[in-house]
């Protein structure tokens, strides 16, 4: 009996479980601490009594979420994420499909045209100069238009389309379908794993983007996405920058900072576990070199 248990669980396995378990704990602890701080009363936070579990439960810190500035940036960020992700997927599909056709004249040249910017860029200042010349400074479109194309994502998409059986497309051709129809009514639905993957990563990238606002938004701070407002709140020592954020007299305690932080994490943390099996599959297929 004892022998059979030892046979099933080998010492090596125990060590592996311990190592991974330890890493899991190291990842969870900071978040527990943060949640606990956001839900604890001021006195308990200051005296550090709320390490892992909230003490003196209160939702006071979360009233910061009622401020107009946080809400506007939240809604605006959702608009950015949805609009730019959908457009990005359309651009990816439109680019990847022609490139997946070996017989297309000029395909090699087009691939090179896409590859070069993946290896070399003009750098931040020329990029800024081009965009400011086009009027993207303090313009809402800067969050959506300039980053629509990604060579990496197009290549992932192309690899995925390549492994869809050609017979599906041929059957549609015989029925008289054009290339656009084939792409959007046959290939796109069959590419859902890679589309879900790219949607997730592109969407998360947009959700997390604060750099665009740092560089391109100077005056119209009402265009700040959530991350920029979060950054203001987290680094705010002076409340002048954030006038209108909350009613005067309130200070940004660690609790309010962590409340906004958690607010900004929740959407991602509740989405990605459900998409996990898609993106793992997408990366498994997309990483195949061809």
């Amino acid at each position, binding site marked *: 009996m004892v022998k059979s248990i030892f046979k099933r669980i080998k010492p090596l396995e125990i060590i592996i479980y311990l*190592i991974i378990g330890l890493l899991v704990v190291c990842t969870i602890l900071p978040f527990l601490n943060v949640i606990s701080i956001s839900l604890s009363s001021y006195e308990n936070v200051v005296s550090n009594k709320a390490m892992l579990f909230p003490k003196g439960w209160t939702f006071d810190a979360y009233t910061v979420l009622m401020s107009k500035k946080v809400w506007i940036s939240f809604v605006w960020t959702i608009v950015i994420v949805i609009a730019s992700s959908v457009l990005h997927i359309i651009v990816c599909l439109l680019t990847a499909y022609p490139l997946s056709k070996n017989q297309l004249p000029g395909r090699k040249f087009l691939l090179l045209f896409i590859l070069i910017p993946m290896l070399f*860029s003009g750098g931040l200042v020329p990029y800024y100069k081009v965009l400011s010349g086009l009027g993207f400074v303090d313009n809402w479109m800067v969050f959506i238009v300039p980053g629509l194309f990604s060579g990496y994502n197009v290549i992932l998409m192309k690899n995925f389309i390549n492994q869809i059986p050609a017979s599906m497309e041929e059957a549609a051709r015989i029925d008289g379908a054009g290339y656009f129809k084939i792409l959007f009514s046959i290939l796109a639905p069959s590419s859902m794993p890679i589309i879900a993957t790219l949607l997730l990563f592109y969407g998360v990238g947009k959700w997390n983007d604060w750099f665009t606002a740092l560089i391109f938004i100077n005056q119209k701070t009402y265009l700040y996405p959530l991350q920029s407002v979060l950054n203001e709140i987290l680094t705010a020592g002076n409340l002048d920058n954030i006038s209108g954020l909350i009613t005067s007299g309130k200070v940004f305690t660690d609790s309010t900072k962590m409340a906004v932080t958690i607010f900004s994490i929740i959407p991602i943390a509740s989405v990605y576990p459900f998409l996990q099996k898609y993106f793992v599959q997408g990366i498994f297929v997309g990483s195949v070199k061809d």
Partner: protein
Amino acid sequence: MLKGTKAKNITILKKINKYRSLYLMLIPAILLLAIFSYAPMFGVIIGFKDLNPRLGVFGSPWADPALKYFMQLFGDSKFWSVLWDTVWISFLRLIFGFPVPVILALLYNEIRNQKFKRFSQTVLYLPYFLSWVVLAGIFKTIFLNEGSFNILLKNLGLSPVPFLTSRSHFLPFLVISDIWKNMGFSSIIYLAAISGIDNSLYEAADIDGAGRFSKMRYITLPSIAVAISINLILQTSNILNGGFDQIYNLDTTGTFYDIIDTYLYRIAFVEGANYSLATALGLFKSVVGFVIIIITNKIANKLGDAGIW
């Protein structure tokens, strides 16, 4: 002969006509690339000009001498310390961070319990999806001198550690927090490679009486060697990226480590808008990155077909 070329031209035109809707599809990509990738590439001439905002990029006079801003850059000891810091941080990340996801994937491969595997992966992926703005906020709450972690140390009778407020502690903190953020997610690519291994190899090894370690050593590792080398190439070509997001958000003083990107951002957008000098610095970075990726890819191809292209 003239007739021949004409006929050839006609067949090409016919072909293009046949695929015209495919070409139509490529228009958005070509426009986006031309405007947002290729136009900035031509914009590097700013580094060779005395940029005058009123005259614009094309109207501004050429710098005299043409390499004025490059000479200014390379003649400045600040540049060399920035370059050194950038390379040093990237190097430490590579040395300590690169093996972690490989090891993690190998460990995962030995785990039979699917529930534990899925749960722990979900947890370890999480930090990858969060921005450095968020993570820096969290880390500052925990690791600043009055943060939870130092209070814990105090309660245990240990002296607090200035993780974020001393330059010497900041560097290991950068490296470790970067590993912490990315390790789980980076292991996916190796797990993908492992899942592609033909099971009959392991069965054959079983028959030969191979243990877990020898299977790992002689089957798993060689099978994922290509994935490892591709990732190594990608990371090596990133050597001049010290991680702007992380340092900008974590450095409470803004002075501990200047990497190329933070320095460039400062001279272009914070201190005096020296666009020409910043462009020269950006061009230096792009060229070095380009050369490194070409060289490493060539080496990888020589070692076996492990290059990216």
